[in-house]
C-alpha cells in the first residue's frame, strides 16, 4: 500500500477530492458554501484528472439543484457512480429526487456543506437545518466533524452505499468545516481501491437500466400495494448500521483511523453526558478532556450515523452511569417540542427503558438545547455552561446556548473567559486585512508553509465581510505541536500575535481585545516608527501598555511599492509575521517563504519571484519595534460605528453589528419577523475612497451623466433657488443651471458624499466636459479624500437638506432633468465600480416612491439586503421601495404575487368607493377610479385625492370606511419590480420568468446580466457568452448565450429591452420609462460588467462601449404598443458592429485567458462568437425593418 501524505486543505477540497476519485458523473449547481466542491471537480475534470478506474468524471452544471438531482437520479439509474454537492435551499430542492433515489435503493453519496435555511432571513452560514429537512427522505445521513473526517467519511460512505444500496447524504458544517484549512492525511488511490471492490461497482452498474436487459421502475402503485412496497426496504435499512461500521473498521485497517457510528469520549463513569454531531463535537471533546482531567465525571457521544438511527448502538455507547444527558441540536424547529436529535435520543432511551431495558439504573434526565445556528460560535465556555446546567437541580430543557435570550429566557449564561487545556502550547494569530489586499491568501500560504514544510500542525479559519467593496477579513490561525481541532474563533486575550494590515482599521475595530499578555502587535503604518504611537486611539495605547505587548510597525505600502509590487502588501506582511511571531526560527522562516514563492511561480513568473524576494528582504529592513511609553497619550478614541444623527434603533442595533459586536445583541433587539428599517447605509460612513471627485463648476455642462453612472449614489445633482443656498457653507459650490429644462434663475450643484464614495472614478470617466486647452482636466477630477473630507462632509449635509426639486416639474426625457431626482438606493456594499447598481438606482430615481421590489437571491440581494445596513431608502415623505427577497428560484412568481395582491386590493378599493359613492362624493370617487396616472403629475394628483379620501373616511363610522382606509393607498399606481441576476432569470428561475411574462400582468423584470453567477464566484450561467471562461466552464463556454430578448419577444405582448447604461445613457433612461409605463410584463436585460469578467471596474463604462460596439450586446427595445400604430415594435438601437468581437474580448480576462489555456479552442470559439454576432445582428436588423403597416390596417378593418 502506498504511503499517504500530509496535506493542508479545506473541508470542501477534502470531500471533492474523494468524490472526484470515486465517481463517474457529477451534476452540480453553485450554492454557498458547497460551490467550491463543484468548482474543484469541474476544474479537475477539465484537466483530465482521472478517477480510480482511469476515466475522467463527467461534470455537468445544471440549471438548479432540482435539475442536478434529476440528473443524478438519471445517471444512477443508468448505472453510473454519481454524486453532487449542495447546501441549504439547494438540498431542499433535491428532496423530491432524494425520495426517488432512496426509494429505488440506489447507491449514491451526495456531499452537503450544511447551512442554515432562509426563514426570517437568509444566511449563508452553517447549521443543520438543511440536513434535518431531509431525514425523512430515506437517505442515510452521515456526519463528519473536521477536515480529516470529511475526507475519510467521503470514502467510507462510498463503500457503505455500494454495499447497502442505501444512498447517503454525507454532511459537514458549512464554513466551519467546509472552509477551515487544516491538515489531513491524504487517502491514497490504493487505499480507496481496497475499500471499493469492483464487484460492488459492477453490481451497481448492472442494476442500471439497459435495453439489453430491460426492466421497468417508477411505476404508479395503488392502495393495494404501495404500502407494502414502502415497507419492503426495511431489511436494507436494518442492515445499514452494520455495513457502515464494517466499512469504518475496514477503513481503520487501511489507515489506522478508527471511527464508530456513535463514539464516546470522556470519563468511563460519566454522570453527565453531552450528545452532539458536527464540528461542535470537537469543541465538546476538548472541553471534556479538560474537565475530566480535573476529575469531573463528564462525557461526550459523537453521533456519526444519524440515519438510519441505531438506538441499540447509541445505548451501548452511553456509559450506564449517566444520570444527566444533554442533547444539542444545531437546528431549530419552531413549534416543536424538541429538535430532532434530542427527540431521537429521548425516544431511544425511553423505548429501551419501557421495553424493560436495564442499561441505566434509572431513566436519565434528558434535556435538549440549540446551539450554533448560522455558524454562531460554540466555545468551550458554552459547553462548560451546558455541563454546569446538567449539575443544577432542575436543568433547563429546550435551552439555547450562545445567545442572550431575554424574550423567552431559553438561554444559558456562560463564562466567555473559560479556556481549555487544548489551547495551551498553541500559538494563536489574528490578522485584520482588507478583502482585496491578499491577507487571506498570504495566510493560507503561511499555513501551507508551516503545515506541509515543518512538523508543526496548523489551522486557519477566515471571517469574511458581508460587503463587497472594502470588505474586511479577519484571519484566525493556530499553530502547534499536536493536531489542532478547536472549531471556534480565537477569543479575547488569547492571540499571541495580532496584525493590522490596514491602518484605517485602528479606529474601527477593537483588535487588541484579542491580544494575550506579552503578545505581539504588528501594524502596517505609513508613518515613521516614532510617530506610529501617536496614531493609535487611546484605548489601544492603554491595551498595549496593560498587556505589555511588543509593538512593531512597517510601512508595507512603501516596501511593496519600492519592490515593484504595487499596492500588494501581502508578502511584506507575511514576512514580518514570520520574522516576529517566533513560530519558526527567523532565517529558516524567511528561507521557507522564498521557497514557497519559487514553488508558486516557478519558471512562469521569474520577475514576480524577483519582486517578491525584493519585498521579503526589504520588509525585514523596514520592520521597526516601537518603544512603548509608560502612559497612553492619545487624544482620540475609537470612531463610533454610525454617525451621531442616526436613529436610536440604528445606534443600538445596526451600530453594534457594524462594530462587530452583534453577537452580544439579545433576542429582544432583533425584529421578530425579519423586518428592518430602510436607509441605514447612510449612517455608516465607510471612508473607502483614497480619492474623490472634485467638481469644476466652470467647466460643467450639467449633463447629468455623473450621478447616472455612480454605482453608490455618492455623487448627486440638485436644482434649487438662489435663496435656498443663502446659508451655504463657504466651500459649497453651485452655479446657475444651464439650459431650458429649468426656470430661469435656478441654481444647480453637483455634490459628492465624501465618506460614502468608493473612489471608483466612473463619474470622471463619463464626464464629457474637457478643458479646451487641457483634455485631461474635466468638469470632475479625482483628488485625495482626506484633505477634502471635512469640508465636503459639511457641504454634503447642506446639500441633503436642500429641498428636492418638484417631481411634477422634472423633464424626465433627458439625463439633465431625470438625474436631479433623488435616488432611493444609496451607499450599498456592492463592488467598487459595480455594473449592476446604477440600474437599480435609476429605477429608484424614476419610480422609487411607488416601487415594490421582489429580489432574487444573488449579488443584488446581498448588497441590497445583507445586514448590517440597508441601501434602499425612503424620501422625506417616508415613501420608498418596499423590498423583499423570497428565494433564488421563485423570484418572478414572488413578484407576480405582489402584483396580484396590489391589483386585488385596488379592485376592492374601487368596489368600496363605488359602494360609498354617496358618502365620499361622486366626483372624488369618479376621479379616483378614472385617474390618469401615466405621469408624475397624474400620480401626485391621485395621491392628493387619496389623502382627501382618507380625510373624509375619518369622519365615517362604518366597516367599509375602515376597509377602504386600509386599501386606499393601493389606488395610487404601484410599480412592481422583479430584480435578479442572470443565474436566476436564465437558469434557475427561467420557468417562473417565462410564466410571469406569459401571465400578461404589469410587472417589470430587471435582469442584471453579468453573464455569470456573480455572487457565488462567477460560475457559468446560460447567459455566459461563447468563448468565455467561467467556473464550470474552465475550457470556455462552447455554446452561445441564450437570447432571452428573442424568447420574450416571441410572446408579442412583452415589452423587451436590452440596455447598457455606460454605452447609451439616454436610451437606458428611455427604456426604463417605457418599460414601466407599459401596462403588461416588461423585461429589461441590463448588461452589467462585473469583476468576474476579469476587468478592473474602473473601466466599467469602456467595457460597455466595447460590448455594444462589437455587437456583443445589441441595444434594442421591443414595444408592443408600437404595433397598434402600424409601427414595427422592434427598434434596434445598436448600429452594425464597428469593431470585431475579438477587440472587445481581448480586454476581458474571461475571454483572453482561453488563449493561455486552450489556444485552439480559443481560436475556434472566437470565430464562432463572431459568426453568432454577425448572424444575430443581421436577424435583428431584418426583424426591425419589417413593415407593420398592413397588419395595423387589417386590425382596423
Amino acid at each position, binding site marked *: 500500500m502506498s504511503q499517504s501524505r500530509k496535506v493542508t486543505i479545506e473541508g470542501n477540497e477534502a470531500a471533492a477530492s474523494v468524490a472526484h476519485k470515486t465517481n463517474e458523473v457529477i451534476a452540480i449547481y453553485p450554492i*454557498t*458554501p458547497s*460551490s*467550491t466542491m463543484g*468548482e474543484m471537480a*469541474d*476544474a479537475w475534470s*477539465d*484537466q483530465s484528472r482521472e478517477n480510480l478506474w482511469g476515466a475522467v468524471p463527467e461534470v455537468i452544471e445544471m440549471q438548479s439543484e432540482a435539475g442536478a438531482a434529476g440528473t443524478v437520479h438519471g445517471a444512477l439509474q443508468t448505472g453510473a457512480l454519481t454524486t453532487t454537492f449542495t447546501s441549504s435551499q439547494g438540498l431542499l430542492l433535491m428532496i423530491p429526487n432524494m425520495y426517488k433515489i432512496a426509494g429505488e435503493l440506489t447507491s449514491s453519496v451526495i456531499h452537503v456543506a450544511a447551512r442554515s435555511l432562509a426563514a426570517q432571513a437568509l444566511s*449563508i452560514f452553517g447549521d443543520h437545518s438543511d440536513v434535518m429537512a431531509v431525514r425523512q427522505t430515506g437517505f442515510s445521513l452521515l456526519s463528519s466533524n473536521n477536515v480529516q473526517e470529511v475526507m475519510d467519511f467521503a470514502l467510507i460512505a462510498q463503500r457503505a452505499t455500494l454495499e447497502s444500496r442505501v444512498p447517503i447524504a454525507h454532511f459537514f458544517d458549512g*464554513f466551519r468545516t467546509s*472552509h477551515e484549512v487544516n491538515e489531513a492525511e491524504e487517502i491514497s488511490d490504493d487505499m480507496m481501491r481496497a475499500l471499493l471492490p469492483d464487484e460492488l461497482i459492477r453490481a451497481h452498474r448492472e442494476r442500471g437500466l439497459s435495453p439489453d436487459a430491460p426492466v421497468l421502475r417508477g411505476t404508479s402503485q395503488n392502495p393495494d400495494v404501495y404500502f407494502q412496497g414502502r415497507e419492503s426496504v426495511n431489511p436494507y435499512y436494518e442492515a445499514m448500521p452494520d455495513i457502515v461500521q464494517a466499512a469504518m473498521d475496514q477503513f481503520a485497517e487501511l489507515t489506522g483511523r478508527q471511527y464508530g457510528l456513535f463514539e464516546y469520549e470522556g470519563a468511563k463513569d460519566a454522570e453527565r453526558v453531552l450528545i452532539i454531531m458536527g464540528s461542535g463535537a470537537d469543541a465538546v471533546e476538548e472541553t471534556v478532556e479538560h474537565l475530566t482531567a480535573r476529575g469531573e465525571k463528564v462525557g461526550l457521544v459523537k453521533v456519526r450515523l444519524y440515519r438510519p438511527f441505531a438506538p441499540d448502538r447509541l445505548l451501548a455507547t452511553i456509559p450506564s452511569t449517566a444520570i444527566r444527558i444533554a442533547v444539542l441540536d444545531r437546528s431549530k424547529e419552531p413549534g416543536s417540542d424538541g429538535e430532532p436529535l434530542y427527540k431521537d435520543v429521548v425516544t431511544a432511551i425511553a423505548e429501551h427503558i419501557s421495553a424493560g431495558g436495564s442499561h441505566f439504573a434509572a431513566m436519565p434526565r434528558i434535556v435538549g438545547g440549540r446551539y450554533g445556528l448560522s455558524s454562531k460560535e460554540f466555545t468551550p465556555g458554552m459547553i462548560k455552561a451546558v455541563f454546569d446546567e446538567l449539575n443544577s437541580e432542575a436543568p433547563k430543557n429546550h435551552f439555547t446556548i450562545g445567545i442572550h435570550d431575554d424574550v423567552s429566557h431559553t438561554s444559558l449564561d456562560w463564562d466567555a473567559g473559560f479556556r481549555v487545556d487544548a489551547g495551551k502550547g498553541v500559538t494563536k494569530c489574528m490578522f485584520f*486585512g*482588507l*478583502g*482585496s489586499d*491578499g491577507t*487571506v*491568501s498570504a495566510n493560507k500560504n503561511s499555513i501551507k508553509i508551516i503545515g506541509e514544510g515543518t512538523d508543526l500542525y496548523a489551522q486557519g479559519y477566515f471571517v*469574511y*465581510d*458581508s*460587503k*463587497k467593496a472594502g*470588505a*474586511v*477579513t479577519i484571519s484566525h490561525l493556530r499553530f502547534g505541536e499536536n493536531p489542532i481541532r478547536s472549531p471556534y474563533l480565537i477569543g479575547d486575550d488569547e492571540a499571541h500575535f495580532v496584525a493590522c494590515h490596514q491602518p484605517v482599521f485602528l479606529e474601527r475595530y477593537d483588535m487588541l481585545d484579542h491580544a494575550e499578555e506579552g503578545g505581539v502587535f504588528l501594524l502596517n503604518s505609513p508613518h515613521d516608527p516614532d510617530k506610529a504611537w501617536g496614531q493609535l486611539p487611546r484605548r489601544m495605547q492603554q491595551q498595549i501598555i496593560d498587556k505589555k505587548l511588543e509593538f512593531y510597525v512597517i510601512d508595507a505600502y512603501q516596501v511593496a511599492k519600492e519592490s515593484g509590487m504595487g499596492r*500588494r502588501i*501581502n508578502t511584506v506582511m507575511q514576512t514580518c509575521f514570520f520574522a516576529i511571531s517566533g513560530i519558526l526560527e527567523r532565517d529558516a522562516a524567511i528561507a521557507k517563504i522564498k521557497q514557497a514563492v519559487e514553488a*508558486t*511561480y516557478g519558471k*512562469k*513568473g*521569474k*520577475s*514576480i519571484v*524577483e519582486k517578491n524576494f525584493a519585498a521579503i528582504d526589504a520588509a525585514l529592513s523596514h520592520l521597526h519595534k516601537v518603544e512603548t511609553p509608560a502612559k497612553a497619550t492619545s487624544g482620540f478614541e475609537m470612531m463610533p460605528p454610525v454617525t451621531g444623527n442616526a436613529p436610536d434603533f440604528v445606534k443600538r442595533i445596526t451600530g453594534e453589528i457594524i462594530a462587530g459586536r452583534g453577537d452580544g445583541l439579545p433576542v429582544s433587539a432583533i425584529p421578530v419577523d425579519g423586518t428592518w428599517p430602510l436607509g441605514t447605509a447612510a449612517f455608516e460612513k465607510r471612508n473607502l475612497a483614497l480619492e474623490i471627485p472634485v467638481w469644476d463648476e466652470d467647466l460643467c455642462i450639467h449633463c447629468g451623466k455623473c450621478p447616472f453612472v455612480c454605482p453608490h449614489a455618492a455623487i448627486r445633482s440638485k436644482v434649487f433657488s438662489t435663496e435656498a443656498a443663502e446659508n451655504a457653507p463657504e466651500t459649497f459650490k453651485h452655479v446657475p443651471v444651464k439650459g431650458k429644462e429649468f426656470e430661469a434663475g435656478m441654481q444647480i450643484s453637483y455634490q459628492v458624499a465624501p465618506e460614502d464614495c468608493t473612489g471608483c472614478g466612473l463619474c470622471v470617466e463619463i464626464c464629457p466636459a*474637457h478643458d479646451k486647452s487641457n483634455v485631461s482636466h474635466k468638469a470632475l477630477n479625482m483628488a485625495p479624500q482626506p484633505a477634502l473630507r471635512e469640508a465636503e462632509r459639511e457641504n454634503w449635509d447642506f446639500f441633503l437638506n436642500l429641498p428636492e426639486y418638484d417631481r411634477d416639474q422634472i423633464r424626465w426625457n433627458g439625463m439633465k432633468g431625470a438625474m436631479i431626482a433623488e435616488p432611493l438606493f444609496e451607499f450599498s456594499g456592492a*463592488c467598487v465600480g459595480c455594473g449592476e447598481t446604477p440600474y437599480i438606482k435609476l429605477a429608484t430615481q424614476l419610480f422609487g416612491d411607488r416601487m415594490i421590489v421582489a429580489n432574487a437571491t444573488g449579488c443584488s440581494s*446581498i448588497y441590497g439586503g445583507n445586514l448590517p445596513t440597508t441601501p434602499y431608502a425612503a424620501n422625506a415623505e417616508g415613501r420608498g421601495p418596499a423590498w423583499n427577497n423570497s428565494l433564488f428560484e421563485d423570484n418572478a412568481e414572488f413578484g407576480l404575487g405582489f402584483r396580484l395582491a396590489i391589483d386585488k386590493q385596488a379592485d376592492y378599493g374601487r368596489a368600496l368607493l363605488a359602494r360609498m359613492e354617496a358618502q365620499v362624493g361622486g366626483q372624488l370617487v369618479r376621479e379616483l377610479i378614472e385617474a390618469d396616472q401615466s405621469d408624475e403629475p397624474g400620480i401626485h394628483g391621485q395621491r392628493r385625492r387619496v389623502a382627501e379620501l382618507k380625510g373624509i373616511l375619518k369622519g365615517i363610522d362604518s366597516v367599509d370606511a375602515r376597509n377602504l382606509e386600509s386599501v386606499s393607498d393601493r389606488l395610487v399606481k404601484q410599480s412592481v419590480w422583479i430584480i435578479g441576476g442572470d443565474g436566476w432569470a436564465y437558469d434557475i428561475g427561467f420557468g417562473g420568468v417565462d410564466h410571469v411574462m406569459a401571465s400578461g400582468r404589469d410587472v417589470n423584470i430587471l435582469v442584471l446580466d453579468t453573464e*455569470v453567477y456573480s*455572487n*457565488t*464566484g*462567477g460560475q457559468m450561467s446560460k447567459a455566459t457568452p461563447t468563448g468565455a*471562461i*467561467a*467556473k464550470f466552464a*474552465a*475550457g470556455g463556454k462552447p455554446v452561445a448565450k441564450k437570447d432571452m430578448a428573442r424568447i420574450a419577444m416571441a410572446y408579442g405582448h412583452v415589452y423587451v429591452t436590452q440596455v447598457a447604461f455606460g454605452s447609451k445613457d439616454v436610451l437606458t433612461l428611455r427604456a426604463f420609462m417605457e418599460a414601466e409605463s407599459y401596462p403588461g410584463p416588461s423585461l429589461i436585460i441590463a448588461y452589467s460588467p462585473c*469583476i*468576474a469578467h*476579469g476587468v478592473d471596474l474602473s473601466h466599467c463604462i469602456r467595457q460597455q462601449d466595447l460590448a455594444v460596439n462589437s455587437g456583443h450586446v445589441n441595444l434594442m427595445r421591443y414595444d408592443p404598443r408600437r404595433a397598434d400604430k402600424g409601427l414595427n415594435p422592434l427598434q434596434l438601437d445598436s448600429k452594425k458592429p464597428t469593431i470585431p468581437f475579438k477587440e472587445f474580448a481581448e480586454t476581458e*480576462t*474571461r475571454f483572453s*485567458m482561453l488563449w*493561455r*489555456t*486552450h*489556444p485552439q479552442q480559443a481560436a475556434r470559439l472566437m470565430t464562432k462568437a463572431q459568426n453568432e454576432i454577425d448572424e444575430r445582428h443581421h436577424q435583428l436588423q431584418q426583424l426591425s425593418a419589417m413593415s407593420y403597416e398592413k397588419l395595423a390596417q387589417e386590425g382596423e378593418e
Partner: protein
Amino acid sequence: MDLSTTYLGLKLANPFVPSASPLSHNVDTAKRLEDAGAAAIIMYSLFEEQIATDEDNLDHLMHRQDIGHGEAHSYLPVHEAYKTRLEDYLENLSSLKAALSIPVIASLNGSSIGGWVEHGKHLQEAGADALELNVYYIAADIEQEGVAVEDRYVSILRELKRHVSVPINMKLSPQFSSVGHLVKQLEAAGVNGVSLFNRFYQPDIDLATLQVTPTLKLSSSAESLLAMRWIAILFGRVGISLAATGGVHTSQDAIKILLAGADVVHMCSALLVHGPERLSEVLDGLRMWMEENEYDSVEQLKGSVSQIHAENPAAFERANYMKVLESFEPPASVWR
C-alpha cells in the same frame, strides 16, 4: 546562379528572410513561407511587456482574486495548463524548428534592462538558430542624453550575450543622431548583425474621443529607401551582417537593397497583404534581373552600389536632400 548569402554566420540559400510577423504564429504559414523560398524565418516578437503582463495576470489569477466575501473566493478558474506567452512562444519555436529545415531566428522585444533579457537563454534552448533583439525604445524623457539612449542598447545587448551563445542581430530604430557610430559600438559589444530599421507604432488622436490611440500602417516601397541609404553607408565599414527591413515589396526594392550592401532582405507587409507566395515572385524577379544583367551570384552584386563603391558617394548624404526638394512639384490643388 548562386543566390546564397551569409547572414549572422548562417549560410542561407538566398537573401530573403521574412521578418517578425504574425505569419510565423503557426507552422502552416511558416511552411508556406519556406516553400515560397524563404531562406530563414524570423519569428514574431516576444515582448518584454507581454512577459511582464503575463506574470502579473498569473499572479492576480493565482493569488489576488480575493474580494473578502464569504461566497466567493475567486472568480476565474485557473487551468493547470495555463501557459504564459513565453511558454507559448517556446512551444511554437520548437514546432517551427521541427517542421522547417531553414534556420529559425527568435525575436525578443523590449526596452528595459531587466530580467526579460534572460529569456534569451530559453529561446536558445528551444532551438533558435539566432536571436533578433529589438529594443523598442522611445526616448521620451527630454532630460535623457542621446548617449544614454545608445548605452541602453549596448547594455541590453551585453546582458543578452551573457545568457546566449547563438548569434545576435539587433533591430534598430532610425532615430539616432549617428546610426553608423551606434552600429560600431554594437559591433564592439559583440553583435553579429543589425537590421535597419524598426517601424514604430505611432500614436494617433481620435477626434471623436480626444483619446490617443496607437496605430500601425503597413509599409510602402518608398520606405525601403531609408534602409537602403544606411546600408549603403555602412557596407564595407563594419564587419557584421546587414539586413534591411521596412518597405521591401518588390524584387526591384530588394535588388536595390542588395546593391547597397545588405546580406539579407526582410519582408513583411507585402507578405501579409499578398500571402507567403509573394516571396517566390520576388525571388523570381531577383533571379530574372540577375540573369538579364548577367550576375553570377548575390555575393557579386552585394554592395556594388554602396557608398564606398558608388559612382557618386555624396548622393547618399545631404546633397541628395537638396536635390529632391528642388524637384518636388506640388499637386495642382495645393495653393502655393
